[in-house]
């Protein structure tokens, strides 16, 4: 695998870019692996990459029903931040955010991490106080975050409506300067290329049809491309986690719902940070192409169709027009939905299961993209050593029976 550099770019430019190698092989399935990862999204590919890189496990496969990065990895609003309330959440999201900082160098693939700053608006007195609490918690944990006032908000984001007469006036914001955005597809592609380079087989269009369990131990999986023997299966299938885990007889405390996002037609740069307005349910940033990337709250009912409710989008857009009056005449370019898996405490599950050799990483709900590197890193360690990584330990599935919740439902950016 050739490394990408200014020299390889120049060399290929001289050949009219005809000779670029494929970024990863189209691998054939072998009959046996040390571990199989189900799901080639960001989390699955990151897991494979760190298994190969940190734990020398290269006889592994990542199988994917559709195409690589075609699920929620390609459907999110690419926001990266780590200013959560609970210590366990701060640990994993900050690990992820800090890995994003030099991910492009690590992967030799430009993931376009752009720490442009994330502002979380305080639009009611209660929200202001709640974020002050989060700010204290974050500063104790060593995060670079601070509360900013209305003048500073207006300075950082001039297009915001800071009128005191607004239905929800801006009282201040909670600001994480090292949060920002990344290029979602590049994260999946970069991890795929890195894993492939180390010998991991990535097999697309290969659906898992069954998980073979004998005497409480995983022995292999059945796929649309045949049976494979393996002692370790890691399920990283987001919205389809319940369906895949049911194949092994494991019930999951998650529900699948649709979360939508949309982009406007491309315009000149108007906003160079990420603004999240939780009270009114919407968040917005601008992509490098100029599109305003807009997201909001998830739908209220279970859904596997990747088509969401129009009412949810209308609600989001209404809120953002109030917050940013200049966007009122923009047209929508694209809108789409992804199926996210929501847990009861809105925190993820990174866990061993009652079946030996079966691991699960799910429940990221509406916040999966920001956590990809951290999630992959600790999940790989969990799989390789057959015990939870210290950062993953609080996210074990048994927390629901033990009453040890990691409650982020009120601290997350948008009320779910």
């Amino acid at each position, binding site marked *: 695998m050739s490394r990408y550099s200014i020299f390889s770019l120049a060399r290929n430019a001289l050949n009219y870019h005809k000779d670029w190698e494929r970024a990863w092989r189209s691998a054939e399935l072998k009959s046996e692996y040390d571990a199989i990862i189900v799901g080639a999204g960001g989390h699955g590919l990151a897991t494979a990459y760190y298994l190969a890189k940190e734990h020398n496990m290269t006889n592994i496969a990542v199988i994917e029903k559709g195409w690589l990065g075609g699920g929620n990895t390609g459907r999110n609003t690419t926001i990266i931040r780590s200013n959560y309330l609970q210590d366990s959440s701060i640990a994993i999201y900050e690990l992820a955010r800090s890995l994003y900082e030099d991910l492009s160098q690590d992967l030799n693939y430009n993931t376009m991490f752009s720490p442009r700053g994330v502002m979380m608006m305080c639009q009611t007195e209660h929200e202001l106080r709640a974020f002050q609490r989060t700010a204290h918690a974050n500063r104790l944990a060593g995060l670079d975050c601070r509360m900013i006032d209305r003048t500073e908000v207006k300075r950082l984001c001039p297009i915001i409506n800071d009128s005191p007469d607004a239905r929800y006036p801006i009282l201040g914001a909670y600001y994480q300067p090292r949060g920002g955005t990344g290029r979602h597809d590049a994260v999946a592609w970069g991890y795929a290329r890195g894993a492939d380079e180390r010998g991991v087989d990535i097999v697309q269009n290969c659906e898992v049809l069954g998980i073979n369990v004998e005497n409480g131990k995983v022995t292999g999986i059945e796929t649309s491309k045949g049976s494979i023997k393996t002692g370790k299966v890691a399920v990283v299938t987001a919205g389809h986690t319940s369906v895949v885990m049911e194949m092994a007889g494991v019930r999951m405390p998650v529900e699948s719902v649709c979360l939508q996002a949309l982009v406007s037609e491309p315009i000149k740069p108007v906003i160079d940070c990420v603004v999240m307005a939780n009270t009114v349910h919407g968040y917005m940033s601008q992509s490098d192409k100029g599109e305003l990337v807009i997201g909001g709250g998830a739908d209220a009912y279970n859904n596997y169709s990747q088509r969401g409710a129009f*009412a949810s989008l209308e609600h989001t857009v209404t809120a953002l027009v109030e917050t940013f009056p200049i966007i009122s005449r923009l047209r929508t370019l694209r809108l789409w939905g992804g199926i996210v898996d929501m847990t009861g405490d809105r925190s993820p599950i990174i866990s061993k299961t009652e079946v030996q050799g079966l691991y699960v990483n799910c429940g990221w709900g509406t916040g999966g993209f920001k956590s990809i590197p951290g999630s992959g890193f600790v999940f790989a360690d969990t799989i390789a050593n057959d015990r939870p990584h210290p950062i993953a330990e609080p996210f074990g599935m048994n927390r629901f029976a033990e009453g040890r919740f990691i409650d982020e439902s009120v601290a997350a950016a948008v009320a779910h």
Partner: protein
Amino acid sequence: MLVIKCPVCGVEGEEGDFHAGGQAHIVRPASSDPENISDTQQRDYLFMRHNPKGLHFERWRCDRGCGKWFHAARDTVTLEFKGYYAINELPPVELMKQAKGYWAGHFASAIKSSKRSKS
């Protein structure tokens, strides 16, 4: 978009006119035997939800109509409503028979007893 019909007052609307109340037929174990509830039972009651890809049974409320709660059977892939029934009832037998996975287990005894009452 969903097309929902309230079985109580008969109005038809979309999801904005109704309120989704989540999974139906959840039994609170502590209501019958409060002294002998295990952590697992309480976890199942609070957090474990049937999350089928296909036929699902839910509670809905007719928000902008009569305000009553009711039950509905809905396909989570096609988003089509397959039937409605009262808030204090189990689904019609033919819908219970179509249920798969955890729902099939959930209704197994109810289907059996309906057969017994017929014969």
